[in-house]
C-alpha cells in the first residue's frame, strides 16, 4: 500500500475559492499544514482575465492573483498540475491521478466549474474551443497565430463568457458571429434594456449577432478542420473556428461517487459544510445560500467564490462563521459599456415592484419585494451601485424611501440618517485626537 501523506487542510482548486479559504485559515491557524492541489499548472491567476490575455497576449505573471511569494509566505504547499480523481470521506483521503493518496483532516472542494459541451456533430474538430481557463486562451492564441489572413469565428452562446471571448477576438481582428439561443445576449445577468445596450455595443464593434437560434452541427471539409456552423434553420455560417460558451456547470467528478450530497452543485450549509463530516465546498462548484432567494443556489461569480471560500476556511480552522450569502452579481465593462447587476434582473411575477429611471444615457432599475430589494441593474454609470447592492445584501427595508434609489442625484445622503451614519461611521471614537484643517487654505494657481 502506498504510504499516505497527511495534511491538516487540503484544498482542491487553486482559484478564488481556494485562495479565499487558505487566507482565512492562515488568519486563524498560523502553522497547520495547508496543501492546495490543482490540475492547472499555474499559481492562482485571475480567471476573468483570460480574455485580456487573449486580446493582447501578456506575460502570465501579469494575471497572477497574488504576489509571487504568496505560497511561501503563507506556508502553503502546492501540488500544481495534479488531478484529484477521488475523494474518500470515510478514510479522509483523496486519490491523485498520479497514484498518490493524500490524507487530510479538513477538506475543501473548490473545484469550480466546467464548460457545458453539447453533444453535437463536429464538436471535436480542430478549431473548436471552449473558454474557461488560461490554457483555452493559449490554445486560441496559438490557433490565431498559425493562421494568416482574416479569420471568422462563431461564438456559440451569448452569455458573459461568450461576450468576453468575442471582445478579445475582435481585438485580434477576427470576424465574430455570436449565436444565442434565447432572444437576447446576456439574458441571465441583464434585463432587456441593458441587454440592448450591450448588444448595440457589440454590433457597433463589428459583431454579428444571431438570436433565437442554435447550432445543429459544426462542419468540416478538410482534415478535420472547422469550415462552418449550420444552424437549426439550415443557415450556414462559414468560419474557421467555433468557441462553445453555452454555460458552465459545477465540476463534480471528484465527489460523484463519494456519497456527498449534490443537487445542481455540492450542497452546503451556512458554514459551507457539505453533508460529509470535515468536508467543505465553495465557489462555482457549490450551491450555497443566496440572500435574494433565501435558499441555496449556484451563483458562479468570483466575489462569491472568494467569500464562500473565506467562510469555509474560517470554519475549517475552528472559528465558527456563517456565510452571509451571495447572489448573482456582475460588473461589466465590455466594449466600454459599464453595467452592474445583482440579484433578479427581471421580476418573475407581479408580486414584485420595479422602479426605473433613465436620464442622460444612464439607466437605473431596482426590483423590490415586500419592502426589500431583490434585484438591480445600473447601466451607463455604475458609481454608487454598491450602496444599493449592500442594502439588498443586508436585507434593509427600503419601502419608505424606495423612490430615491433610482433618482438622478441618488447618494448616501438620500438614505435615512440612521443608515448613512452606520455606513460612514460618522464620528471618530470618543477621546481620539483629531486634526482638522490646520492652516489657511493654500493659494491656488489659476491658469497661467
Amino acid at each position, binding site marked *: 500500500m502506498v504510504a499516505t501523506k497527511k495534511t491538516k487542510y487540503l484544498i482542491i482548486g487553486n482559484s478564488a475559492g481556494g485562495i479565499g479559504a487558505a487566507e482565512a485559515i492562515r*488568519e486563524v491557524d498560523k502553522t497547520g499544514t495547508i496543501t492546495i492541489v490543482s490540475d492547472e499548472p499555474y499559481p492562482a491567476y*485571475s480567471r*476573468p*482575465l483570460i480574455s*485580456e490575455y487573449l486580446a493582447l497576449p501578456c506575460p502570465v505573471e*501579469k*494575471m*497572477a*492573483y*497574488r504576489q509571487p511569494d504568496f505560497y511561501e509566505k503563507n506556508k502553503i504547499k502546492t501540488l500544481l498540475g495534479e488531478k484529484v480523481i477521488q475523494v474518500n470521506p470515510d478514510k479522509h483521503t483523496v486519490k491523485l491521478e498520479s497514484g498518490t493518496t493524500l490524507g487530510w483532516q479538513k477538506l475543501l472542494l473548490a473545484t469550480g466549474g466546467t464548460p457545458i459541451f453539447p453533444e453535437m456533430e463536429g464538436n471535436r474538430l480542430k478549431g473548436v474551443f471552449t473558454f474557461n481557463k488560461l490554457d483555452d486562451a493559449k490554445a486560441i492564441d496559438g490557433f490565431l497565430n498559425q493562421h494568416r489572413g482574416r479569420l471568422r469565428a462563431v461564438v456559440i452562446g451569448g452569455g458573459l463568457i461568450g461576450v468576453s471571448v468575442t471582445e478579445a477576438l475582435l481585438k485580434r481582428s477576427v470576424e465574430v458571429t455570436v449565436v444565442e439561443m434565447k432572444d437576447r445576449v446576456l439574458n441571465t445577468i441583464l434585463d432587456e434594456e441593458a441587454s440592448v445596450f450591450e448588444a448595440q455595443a457589440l454590433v457597433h464593434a463589428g459583431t454579428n449577432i444571431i438570436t433565437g437560434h442554435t447550432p445543429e452541427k459544426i462542419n468540416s471539409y478538410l482534415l478535420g478542420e472547422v469550415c462552418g456552423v449550420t444552424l437549426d434553420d439550415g443557415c450556414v455560417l462559414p468560419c474557421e473556428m467555433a468557441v462553445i460558451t453555452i454555460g458552465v456547470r459545477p465540476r463534480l467528478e471528484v465527489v460523484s461517487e463519494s456519497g456527498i450530497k449534490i443537487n445542481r452543485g455540492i450542497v452546503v450549509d451556512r458554514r459551507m459544510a457539505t453533508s460529509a463530516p470535515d468536508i467543505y465546498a465553495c465557489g462555482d462548484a457549490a450551491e450555497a445560500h443566496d440572500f435574494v432567494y433565501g435558499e441555496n443556489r449556484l451563483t458562479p461569480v*468570483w*466575489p462569491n467564490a472568494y*467569500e464562500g471560500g*473565506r467562510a469555509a476556511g474560517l470554519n475549517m480552522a475552528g472559528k465558527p462563521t456563517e456565510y452571509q450569502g451571495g447572489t448573482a*452579481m*456582475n*460588473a*461589466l*465593462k465590455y466594449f466600454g459599456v*459599464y453595467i*452592474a447587476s445583482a440579484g433578479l434582473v427581471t421580476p418573475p411575477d407581479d408580486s414584485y415592484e420595479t422602479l426605473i429611471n433613465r436620464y442622460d444615457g444612464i439607466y437605473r432599475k431596482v426590483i423590490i419585494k415586500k419592502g426589500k430589494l431583490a434585484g438591480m441593474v445600473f447601466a451607463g454609470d*455604475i*458609481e*454608487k*451601485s*454598491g*450602496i*444599493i*447592492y*449592500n442594502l439588498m445584501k443586508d436585507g434593509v427595508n427600503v419601502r419608505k424611501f424606495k423612490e*430615491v434609489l433610482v433618482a438622478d*442625484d441618488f*447618494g*448616501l*445622503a*438620500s438614505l435615512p*440618517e440612521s443608515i*448613512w451614519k452606520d*455606513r*460612514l*461611521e*460618522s*464620528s*471618530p*471614537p470618543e477621546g*481620539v*485626537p*483629531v*486634526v*482638522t*484643517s*490646520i*492652516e489657511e*487654505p*493654500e493659494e*491656488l*494657481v*489659476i*491658469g*497661467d
Partner: protein
Amino acid sequence: MKKVYVKEDVCIGCGLCEVYCRLKHSKSKDLIKAYKKEIPRPLSRLRVDESGIVSLSVRCQHCDDAPCIRACLTGALSRDPSTSLVMVDEERCIGCGTCTLACPLGVPKLDTSQKKMVKCDLCQDEELPVCVANCPNEALLYAEVEEALA
C-alpha cells in the same frame, strides 16, 4: 490606522474637498488646467452626496473588513501591511467595477478613459489629506483609530 470623518452638522456641501482632491491628482497642479484641459481628466477620489440640508463628503473608509478586496477579480486591491490602508495596484486593475458594486459606500471610482479604478489613499505624501487640510468649515476630521484585531 488613520481615517477621515465627516461632521455632517457643519458640512455645507461646498465641494472644495472634491476640488482639492482633483487638483491633487492632476498632473499640472493647476486648477483651471486640471478642470478644463488635462487629458486624461484628473478625477476626485471622493464625492459629495447631498439631499436637502444633508451633505456628506464621502471617500474610502479603508474598512477593517473590506469587501472590495475580497471582491476584486484580479487581486489588484490589497491592504498595505505597513499603513493598513486599502490600496489599488493600478498596473493590475482592469477597471471592471466589481469593487464599486461590492462597496457599501459605492466609492471606488472608475476612470473610464484609463480603464482603471482610482481611490483615496489619504494623500500618503502629504502631512494631511488635502480634503481635510482645505475644508473651510473644519467639517472633515482626521483621526487615528485603533485597528480591529484580525
